[in-house]
């Protein structure tokens, strides 16, 4: 008899003419069903839950966005694209879009550059590797609420540690919360603090898969550490960079808890909406129970995310030519 793969039928009668008894026949059938159907049954829970609580709500958002839909009334009037038309001439919407992009760039670009550099530093034989890695990841284990509460204190105008340190250089106390630029910087620092170490570890994992011989050859050729990072490491880990850039972009577009809590629960993102992000804008209309309008914003955001993630994907891919 030939050897069997695990998915094959278990019993193949050596002498076909003998008719199997009904019992054997049934066992064969059950076995066959078990082998064929079990894999689908095992992966089904994930797909069912994702469809019910992930995909369906996302798609249903589109339907809600075409209605005048509030929780206060059971009648949801179909209004076509009215919500979207209103949105396009809503200054607060464009303000939130600007804030989201500004905070997104301020937090993501320095963060990813720093993360690659840190991963590069960690990707060599070092003492206390584990200690460094664990400390790097501490901020990511800290909840977003804790991060903002802690940093709001650090960024405090009167008694905050950061203004105190700046005062050594003759800088007069900054009201971080009040200005557009200063609040964006403060929020970006919180995001960076929480995510840089995590992304550095992801990059490090990819870097460790790069063959050592490449570096050895480059060292013999006299290439410096920075040159090796640019010419070998970055091209070799490009798929991971693309993945991280896209997930970071998606994350940055959805920033919500940081501005909400930094503004001490201000759903408008500060008195002048100086740091209201798009997610916060959605939440504002959610709390006003205007679900139709909030859903329209959600869909606009979805389009923004797809476009920006797409642009970033192309940029990250194209930069290959410049590097290698």
């Amino acid at each position: 008899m030939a050897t069997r793969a695990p998915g094959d039928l278990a019993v193949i009668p050596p002498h076909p003419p003998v008719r199997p008894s009904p019992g054997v026949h049934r066992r064969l059938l059950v076995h066959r069903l078990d082998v064929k159907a079990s894999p689908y049954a095992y992966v089904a829970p994930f797909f069912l839950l994702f469809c019910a609580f992930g995909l369906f709500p996302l798609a249903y958002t589109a339907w809600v966005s075409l209605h005048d839909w509030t929780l206060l009334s059971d009648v949801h009037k179909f209004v076509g694209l009215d919500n979207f038309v209103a949105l396009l001439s809503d200054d607060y919407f464009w303000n939130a879009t600007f804030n989201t992009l500004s905070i997104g760039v301020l937090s993501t670009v320095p963060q990813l550059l720093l993360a690659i550099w840190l991963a590069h530093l960690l990707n060599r034989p070092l003492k206390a590797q584990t200690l460094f890695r664990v400390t790097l990841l501490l901020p990511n284990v800290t909840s977003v609420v804790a991060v903002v509460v802690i940093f709001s204190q650090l960024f405090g105008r009167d008694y905050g540690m950061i203004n105190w340190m700046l005062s050594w250089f003759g800088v007069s106390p900054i009201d971080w919360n009040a200005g557009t630029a200063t609040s964006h910087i403060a929020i970006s620092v919180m995001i960076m603090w929480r995510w840089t170490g995590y992304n550095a570890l992801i990059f490090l994992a990819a870097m460790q898969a790069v063959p050592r011989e490449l570096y050895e050859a480059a060292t013999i050729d006299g290439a410096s550490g920075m040159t090796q990072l640019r010419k070998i490491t970055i091209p070799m880990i490009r798929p991971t960079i693309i993945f991280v850039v896209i997930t970071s972009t998606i994350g940055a577009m959805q920033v919500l808890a940081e501005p909400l809590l930094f503004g001490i629960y201000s759903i408008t993102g500060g008195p002048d909406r100086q740091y209201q992000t798009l997610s916060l804008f959605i939440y504002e209309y959610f709390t006003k129970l205007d679900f139709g309008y909030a859903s329209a914003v959600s869909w606009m955001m979805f389009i923004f995310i797809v476009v920006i993630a797409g642009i970033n994907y192309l940029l990250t891919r194209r930069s290959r030519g410049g590097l290698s």
Partner: protein
Amino acid sequence: MTPRGGTSTARTLTYLTLMAVAFFSALPLYYSVVVASRDNSALADVPPPLIPGGNLFANIARVFDTVPFALALLNSVLVSGAIAISVMFFSTLAGFAFAKLRFRGGKILLVVTVATMMVPTQLGIIPLYLLMVKLEWTGSLYALVVPALTNAFGVFFMTQYLSRALPTELLEAGRVDGCTTWGLFWHVVLPVARPAAAVLGMLTFMAAWNDYFWPLVVLTPENPTVQVALSTLAAGYVSDYALSLAGTALGTLPLVIVFALLGKQVIGGIMQGAVKG
């Protein structure tokens, strides 16, 4: 030999940089303990206090007086624990199927699973809320647990692990002994999967513990999780930093300490899950 042939000054610089980064990673957490253990008047000092004071327990007691923090802790433990156990189970099950069972469409389904990680599901939060209203789960822990029972990261993570760590011969031997597929899962796969599942459970527990927006939307301040209670505290007692940071320390530090102790395994887990991402 170091891959980059660093000189000793370069090595020193590397260590100094990493130490600086480690310092700034830990500093805010340390400082939160300093503030949490002081009384508010001390925070107005110039320079600000840099070492912990003696008021930590008094401040923690005030936290319990101000918000239902005991209930919040219980809720968070229940929710995070239930989610962690469920994710460990379903991820191992699906990971087993993807890694070791051959079935039509399996490869494509795995790709789809990974792709779902990039779907911004937060944008569907309004219909999700409407769904919870229909199910009458608003204000209840079901609203947090049920949507989180599985996730794509877990499935992918266990698939990666099992395709490496689970010998196919072991499964074949199980088949010869007459195991059903379920029998194989129970007797062969689960014991092999245990170390990776433990890491996954830890990661999931932490993520669920730290989740903020959805609990905020769907729960009430009377029946909160730790994060919701903390935000109530921070929003309601703006100038009382000692109070809100005592709550923060209480809700965060146990997790941070457990992480620091098990850090090596958790980090190994994150990096393994990342390689093919």
